[in-house]
């Protein structure tokens, strides 16, 4: 893992002290709310429906056990004993008081964490494949470059007041687990025909009220040019991005308005002109950062484990968990274990302080002290020996974290919605909980197979509904919560935006509608076909016909 150097330590300590002074001046009356608001937002502190909310950056979703314990400590000491892991691999505390926030930032700084650039029109926390460094299909660890981009973008003076917020994601695998194509910039590590490794550069993706799949503007960018090229993209955006209309200020609008080819030409022009003065990324610097992400001291182990097979045969619950919650590791004898934060009656992504401590303890004992946060709001133990998996599962079971549902219908992404968020139009979490309950039978879930349901409580799309296989968007219809359903969205390397299936549903009917869609899939799927594959083969109409056409009953019972 990356460790702060003296500059990182000094910067974070300085910012914490600055904020302590700003809070004191606000409470003492020297700063008005208008003056204070941008200062608190620069430190990740929002004012939500019921309380302040502090958003803490978890760079590229990588956490040490020590950091996770500190998050638990903060939840317990300054909040109400829980936290919420987000679709940007961050954590949000829902109930911090203003007066405690400087102490929270100090506690974060003790473990090399902060809340800088988790708000505002700047380059936000860089996200990455949660299986970075361990995925069997990986070309190279993307965290090396995510960390380089993090350092380059932190308090970058030219890019601190962009037209709008800016999100960068990096992956090192051909299978995209980081939603690369719905980011302002997506970087995909690739090999060129000579075998050299560089980046495919994707620009102008995004969700929100104008969802767009990003366009590739460079098939292969040499590593050395990474920062200079990012600088060129940001500079073109900073000059030409709209500042007159907040809804048209993201880079996706600029790319769409000039066209991908023209935007690429502008970037190439800026890149070639500024090359002499732009930031260089020499191989020595890449090598220096890469050392922080050196693999742990794996043991040489056989690729199959007898005790694992025995436990799986003997314990059905453990076998189910292994089927859904494990991913192949690049090191023989190890697995990537996903900790589902989607148990029954718990908001997706929420974890109690005790659960955070339990996850940290398991990471210390079984995963070289390392954890990850996924953009799908789960946690990951990235290096678990196959013969330790049963003990890990037992530990997770004790902590209420062993739900065997990763990638299944109940592994739902949901934003905080109207239960917490000032921007929301409708609740997300209760819909997720009711879908969970409707499909509570794990055997049924496993029989349905991979199905990604994503719920947002408003058009800002923090719950990624546009790229859900089934997307659910909360809308306000004459003061009542209604839900619009989209089908066919996909956040992976075959990225696609969902299509609206038809009129929205009342809160009472939306779960019936989801079940109707799932039943249609089960009836029409070919052998071995995932939901998204069936959808692509048969299209929207059969789902629509069965949802609305076969009986207008949904309409009569509340669809509007």
């Amino acid at each position, binding site marked *: 893992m990356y460790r702060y150097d003296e500059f990182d330590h000094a910067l974070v300590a300085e910012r914490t002290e600055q904020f302590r002074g700003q809070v004191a001046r606000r409470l003492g009356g020297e700063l008005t709310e208008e003056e204070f608001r941008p200062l608190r937002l620069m430190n990740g502190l929002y004012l939500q*429906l*019921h309380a302040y909310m502090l958003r803490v950056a978890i760079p590229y979703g990588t956490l040490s056990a020590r950091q996770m314990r500190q998050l638990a400590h903060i939840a317990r000491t300054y909040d*109400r004993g829980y936290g919420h892991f987000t679709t940007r691999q961050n954590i949000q505390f829902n109930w911090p*008081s203003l007066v*405690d926030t400087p102490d929270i930032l100090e506690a974060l700084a003790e473990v090399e964490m902060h809340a800088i650039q988790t708000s505002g029109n700047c380059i936000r926390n860089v996200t990455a494949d949660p299986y970075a460094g361990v995925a069997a299909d990986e070309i190279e660890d993307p965290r090396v470059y995510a960390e380089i981009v993090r350092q380059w973008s932190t308090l970058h003076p030219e890019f601190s007041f962009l037209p709008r917020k800016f999100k960068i994601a990096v992956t090192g695998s051909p299978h995209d687990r980081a939603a690369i194509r719905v980011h302002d910039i997506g970087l995909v590590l690739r090999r060129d025909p000579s075998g050299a490794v560089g980046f495919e550069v994707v620009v102008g993706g995004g969700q929100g009220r104008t969802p767009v799949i990003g366009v590739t503007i460079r098939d292969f960018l040499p590593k050395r040019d990474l920062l200079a090229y990012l600088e060129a993209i940001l500079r073109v955006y900073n000059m030409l991005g709209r500042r007159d209309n907040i809804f048209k200020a993201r880079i996706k609008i600029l790319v769409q308005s000039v066209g991908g080819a023209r935007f690429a030409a502008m970037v190439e022009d800026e890149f070639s002109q500024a090359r002499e003065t732009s930031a260089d990324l020499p191989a020595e610097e890449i090598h220096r950062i890469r050392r922080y992400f050196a693999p742990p001291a794996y043991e040489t182990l056989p690729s199959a484990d007898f005790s694992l097979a025995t436990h799986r045969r003997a314990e059905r619950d453990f076998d189910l968990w292994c089927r859904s919650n494990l991913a192949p590791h690049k090191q023989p004898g190890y697995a990537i274990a996903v900790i589902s934060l989607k148990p029954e009656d*718990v*908001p997706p992504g929420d974890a109690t302080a005790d659960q955070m401590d339990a996850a940290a303890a398991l990471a210390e004992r079984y995963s070289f002290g390392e954890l990850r946060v996924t953009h799908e709001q789960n946690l990951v133990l990235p290096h678990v020996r196959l013969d330790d998996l049963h003990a890990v599962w037992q530990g997770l079971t004790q902590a209420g974290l062993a739900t065997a549902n990763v990638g299944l219908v109940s592994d739902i992404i949901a934003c905080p919605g109207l239960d917490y968020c000032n921007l929301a139009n409708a*609740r997300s979490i209760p819909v997720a909980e009711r879908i969970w309950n409707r499909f509570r039978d794990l055997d049924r879930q496993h029989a349905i197979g991979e199905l990604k349901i994503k719920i947002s409580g408003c058009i800002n799309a923090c719950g990624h509904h546009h790229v859900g296989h089934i997307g659910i968007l909360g809308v306000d219809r004459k003061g*009542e919560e209604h839900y619009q359903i989209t089908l066919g969205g996909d956040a992976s390397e075959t990225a696609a935006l969902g299509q609206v299936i038809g009129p929205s549903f009342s809160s009472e009917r939306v779960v019936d509608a989801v079940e109707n869609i799932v039943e249609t899939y089960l009836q029409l799927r070919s052998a071995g076909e995932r939901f998204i594959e069936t959808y692509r083969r048969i299209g929207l109409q059969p789902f629509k016909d069965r949802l609305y056409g076969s009986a207008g009953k949904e309409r009569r019972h509340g669809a509007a």
Partner: protein
Amino acid sequence: MTTNATSAGHGRIVTANRLTDGAVVYLTPDGRWSRRIEHAAFIMEEPDEKRLLAAADEDLRSRRIVGPYAMDVAHTAEGVRALSERERIRAAGPSVQQALWAQPRGRAMTPSEGSS
């Protein structure tokens, strides 16, 4: 006129968030801020709303609250009820995880159930 929200029918009340911890508060007839919506001063006439919002602005300046505004309510047999879902959730707290959020903050002051 303003009353302690006991009159029948629709009206308005003034709400805000408390500066120190962001808690939802309501302006009472005696000019204090309560955590409970039923304590709110019930407004039926526009001049009263202006007067209460002016009082809230004073408290904004004296750093007791942030973001004051007037909102629609109905007075029902069960008491004052916010008309929008958003305000109902603001008044009652999140509709999920109640066992967790209803506990006090670890070290911070427990929000007073009465007036601040």
